[in-house]
């Protein structure tokens, strides 16, 4: 029983990492209609910036806030000067561009700061507490709660604010959005900026756990994409729940399903995706899109 709870707790902790990246992906998708594969890379870059600022003597929280602000600006500029050229064209091209961007950012991080692991300071204390017989680090609890908070903010942004509505409208139909007076270009920049800022928070939350390397987010990105598909692209709450589910199930499967073990546990989310998509094509929480002519 103790082992089971420990696995669930650790799974939730891993799932939180996937969740925060998935939220950034959902944000860009809802605001621009794209899937940004570079989201993980951008988060790593902000984590490095944060780390450098801390090394330079700034308090961690100040460093994080500066990195978030810088990411917002860089995200907006990336949209304006790079992605804008591909938004109206073939969506496949845009996806390839974001994958190229991911490779580029990873390379730049490696070139600037080497591929060695760097210790990233944690926002939360490192000691553990015991919950139902499982050892849970305060850091995991902190990360978990931070992600719940971010999820609620993103959900409220999209469903409860005028800005969120405008971002979604622009992603769905930029021309009609402009006909209603929405400043389409600025809203697209804001969408990328907000997602990049969220990515910076993601980087700062997970870097202590993963240790900072240029490829830190690679595996998390795969899981985050799985969570996005599973949870439904339109639902922040959905993707976070899916990410937790993936984190927990892969841990349980690794231990309790012998032929899976630790080597094959990466397959778990994908088996889950196949099953879910066959039963519910819109994802677990996504809204069904009915098209009538």
């Amino acid at each position: 029983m103790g082992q089971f709870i420990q696995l669930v707790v650790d799974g939730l902790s891993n799932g939180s990492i996937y969740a925060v990246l998935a939220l950034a992906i959902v944000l860009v998708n809802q605001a621009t209609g794209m899937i940004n594969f570079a989201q993980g890379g951008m988060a790593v870059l902000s984590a490095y910036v944060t780390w450098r600022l801390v090394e330079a003597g700034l308090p961690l929280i100040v460093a994080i806030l500066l990195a978030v602000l810088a990411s917002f600006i860089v995200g907006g500029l990336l949209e304006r000067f790079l992605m804008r050229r591909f938004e109206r064209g073939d969506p496949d091209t845009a996806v390839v561009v974001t994958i190229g961007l991911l490779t580029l950012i990873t390379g730049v991080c490696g070139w600037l700061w080497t591929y060695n692991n760097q210790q990233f300071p944690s926002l939360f204390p490192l000691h553990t507490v015991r919950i139902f017989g499982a050892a849970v680090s305060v850091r995991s609890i902190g990360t978990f709660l931070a992600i719940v908070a971010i999820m609620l903010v993103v959900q409220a942004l999209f469903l409860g604010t005028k800005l969120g509505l405008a971002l979604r409208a622009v992603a769905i139909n930029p021309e009609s959005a402009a006909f209603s007076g929405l400043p389409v270009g600025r809203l697209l920049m804001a969408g990328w900026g907000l997602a990049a800022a969220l990515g910076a928070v993601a980087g700062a939350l997970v870097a202590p756990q993963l240790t900072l390397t240029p490829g830190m987010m690679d595996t998390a990105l795969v899981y985050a994409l799985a969570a996005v598909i599973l949870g439904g692209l339109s639902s922040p709450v959905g993707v976070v729940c899916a990410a937790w589910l993936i984190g927990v199930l892969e841990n349980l499967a690794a231990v309790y399903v012998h032929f899976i073990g630790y080597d094959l546990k990466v397959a778990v989310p994908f088996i889950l995706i196949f099953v879910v998509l066959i039963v519910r094509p819109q994802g677990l929480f996504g809204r069904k899109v009915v098209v009538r002519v």
Partner: protein
Amino acid sequence: MTLLELESVTASYGPVQVLDGVSLSVPEGGAVGILGANGAGKTTTLRAISGTVRAGGRILFDGSDIRGKRPDQVAALGIAHVPEGRGTFGALTVRENLRVGAYLRRDRKQIESDIDFLLELFPNLEERFKSNASALSGGEQQMLAVGRAFMAKPRLLLLDEASLGLAPSTAKTVYDAIAELRRESGIAMLVVEQNANLAFRLVDSATVLETGRSVLSGTSAELRGMDEIRRAYLGG
């Protein structure tokens, strides 16, 4: 008072010039049709006004030339474009579509009462208020597209082939509903339509376009009286 005046407007897609001198005017509160065959340049004329294609000549709105403005800036001046193919936001609900239409407005109370007014006029939309726009029928989507434009409280509404893809009886219902909206709101309209009979349910006068040129204009009664108009656009 003239609200909108087009003087020898030209426009091209790349090297291909498709508008070659379009002139027309819409009086304050009036409704003017643009008739013409497929490919005559009707849609492009509306796109020139709303700033989605670059235009030559002069496009005067309220006396000043609005050429070169971005579509969102044109919208802010009080021109609402209902594009060909409706352009509703499929993954947004009816309510959200209308809220997007009111994006530039700050008068929250008045927005809600305008939504109520619209739903009274277009009762179908009231039934589907919380559905996604993509789930609506073609006629309902067209009404929603007009509703989105209305929510901006425009002074001029540009309407592009509202009958496209609709059964004839549905198209009539849609046009009559828009005519009712016009009577109730007094918004001026510039209405593109291939089917002149439908257009005359809504407009008082019209201009005929042929290969990017306005060749003829007149009141509904005058145009109905002309043989060539009857043959070309009124089905005999």
